[in-house]
């Protein structure tokens, strides 16, 4: 009798987590960010309830600054699965002119992501929200629980987390409080890519390398695919073979130079490249410990 492979073991653990949430909460929802981790999380949800349908909706917090390809993929992917998709945007902030160019990334994320997410969770009275975050992504996430308690303001207190032992999760909350659930906590970026490869999971084409028109800005490659991404002084417009290592908002997520146009090539690149995937995300570098600050305020 052979033990499970690492991917099989991770899969079994994640399915267990997803089933616990669906059974213990009144109104769970799955945060869907369109990225590769979301694609994996949705596949695990399908597996958890097969042959039944996924018993909760997906929620996309749309900043309206995403890549076009992401939105096209989102609509196609969720329609094919037959799962309910809720799209929420912070329309009042957008009408007041919120954008990353004017506000800077920190305030823009605060309004269009964090505030928008909290509003959407409150509007839906969701008592549990799945997120695709992994502990290997960033230092402050290494201590995040799988079931992460949030007070009635949606805030996280790193000094007051519930101990979490074995595979027993305490999901008890009072009205207004909620739990963020991270079924991919123990997955690494490598695990996610291998699983996508083994399972043939659809992902946004931006992850694959091709020749793209980009604005070269210092070390960053900005893809001006949307009209609102305007060249800055000193930018050079060039055609570069590149791809996205992680997907975020179009103005704030850079591409990396790459020839990886297939999953095996992406995995090979990952083995070779020793820069963590979040390096190209402008927002994490705002200041020391910035992810932890965002999380305390309610960011995923």
């Amino acid at each position: 009798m052979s033990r499970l492979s690492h991917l099989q073991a991770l899969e079994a653990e994640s399915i267990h987590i997803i089933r616990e949430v669906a059974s213990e909460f009144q109104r769970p929802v799955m945060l869907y960010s369109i990225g590769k981790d979301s694609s994996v999380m949705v596949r695990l949800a399908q597996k958890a309830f097969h042959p039944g349908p996924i018993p909760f909706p997906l929620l996309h917090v749309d900043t309206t600054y995403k890549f076009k390809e992401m939105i096209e993929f989102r609509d196609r992917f969720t329609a094919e699965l037959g799962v309910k998709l809720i799209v929420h945007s912070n329309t009042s902030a957008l009408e007041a002119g919120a954008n990353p160019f004017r506000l800077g990334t920190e305030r823009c994320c605060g309004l269009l992501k964090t505030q928008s997410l909290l509003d959407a969770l409150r509007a839906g009275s969701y008592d549990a929200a799945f997120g695709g975050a992994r502990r290997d992504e960033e230092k402050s996430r290494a201590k995040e629980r799988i079931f992460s308690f949030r007070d009635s303001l949606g805030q996280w207190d790193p000094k007051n987390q519930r101990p979490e032992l074995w595979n027993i999760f305490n999901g008890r909350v009072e009205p207004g409080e909620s739990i963020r659930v991270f079924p991919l906590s123990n997955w690494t970026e490598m695990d996610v890519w291998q699983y996508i490869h083994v399972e043939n999971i659809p992902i946004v084409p931006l992850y694959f390398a091709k020749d793209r028109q980009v604005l070269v800005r210092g070390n960053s490659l900005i893809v001006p695919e949307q009209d609102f991404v305007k060249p800055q002084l000193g930018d050079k417009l060039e055609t570069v073979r590149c791809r996205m290592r992680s997907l975020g908002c179009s103005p704030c997520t850079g591409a990396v130079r790459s020839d990886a146009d297939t999953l095996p090539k992406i995995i090979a690149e990952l083995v070779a490249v020793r820069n963590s995937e979040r390096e190209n995300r402008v927002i994490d570098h705002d200041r020391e410990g910035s992810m932890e600050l965002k999380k305390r305020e309610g960011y995923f």
Partner: protein
Amino acid sequence: MSAASVEQPSPQSFDIDQFLAAEESKGLLRLTTAGSVDDGKSTLIGRLLHDAKGAYEDQLKSAVRAGQIDFSLLTDGLRAEREQGITIDVAYRYFATIKRKFILADTPGHEQYTRNMATGASTAELAIILLDAHRGLTTQSRRHAFIATLLAIPNFVIAVNKMDLVGYDQEVFNRIRAEFEPFLERIGTKNYYFLPLSALKGDNVVDRGSHMPWFDGPPLLEYLETVEPADNMIEASFRMAVQRVVRPDQNFRGYAGQIASGTIQPGDEIQALPSGRRSKVKRVVTFDGDLEMAHAPMSVTLTLADEIDISRGDMISSGTPPKSARIFDATMVWFDAHPLDPAHDYLVKHTSHTIPARVDGVRHLVNVATLESEPATSLAMNEIGVVRIATAKPLFFDPYQENRVTGSFILIDRKTNHTAGAGMILAEAEGSLEDAADRLVRLVRAAVPEGARLNLPSDDAQAMEVIRGLLKGVLK
């Protein structure tokens, strides 16, 4: 480069197809580390991550102090910790070699160590107990080994660190081993490996190094890659707690859960608990098709040959049946700032069910430093003791030392919803039937006047009302 080659083949020789094929069969080992900052634990983990290429370069950059990598900064995550310079919570780290993927629960050594260590140890298959060769065996090392053994971790590495500070002296290592071994035997630690190393210099971490030719065992990473996880859960009797009934339409009724132990295949006879009804497995259903056989710890959905009533929280078992009890003894680790209180209302969450519970007395407290039992009426935060638990409905369990899934539970405070403590079931309460009969006789004699008749209404609620009235007379 030692035999423990890391996941960083040179670009020329790298064959992606070969790599992916190898990855598909790669196993997973969950481990935990115990030791204080003074023992050089963060340095050890930092070096393991660094030398095994588990730490990425941008994270390394933020750990550079005065031009040198400070490995401890790689593992200290939260702002509050960076400010105080100590780790105060369990952090999970990930690294991989060609042979295995590792999930490492890094637990702090001093501050609230019991609670954090228990958390990290609960899922671990291997514990690294770190001690300082220069300081020798301390009370803290004994505590760490005791807690890890209590949590039933099957493998131990006793890492004698800072060998560079004692001139890599074999005598120092031998003395520590001779002193620690009898203790480990006494507490029942199963499989342990004593390893001299220097995390700071890198000796016996990934590479053997040249300073300790007198030691010929494998370095740490090689040992982690090859140790047998000593996992007998596949050979044990089948247990699966039902998490959810999957019923998409009238034609399908399946019971979804993660197999806690054993194997299952179509045709196997099973028993559903608490109903006790028996049936046979019809199909083992997964998204990827039906299976001919499934085993722990897979997540599956079972369909049965007969329509029997099973709901969430029930257990499906075969082979030796699990034990059943409403009153049982358990070793508890207390987490909450509010001490254990026998007058307080709790909930037991055990497998997939949550039931009201009371603490029916503390049998004794375990002094973690001396291992002596001490009388106690409560447990404070970070204390360990043996308590008697009474639940509103029977629990179906195996002793924790035999089955870490069906033998474990958490105690939830009903007022605050805090996870107040973690329990490891020892056994059903000995002689609880006699105890109960004895107590009942005494209570009835005390409550019902001599020669009077006790008329109990047939409705349970009304009957309880009558009994409560009588008890008030007894207890005042």
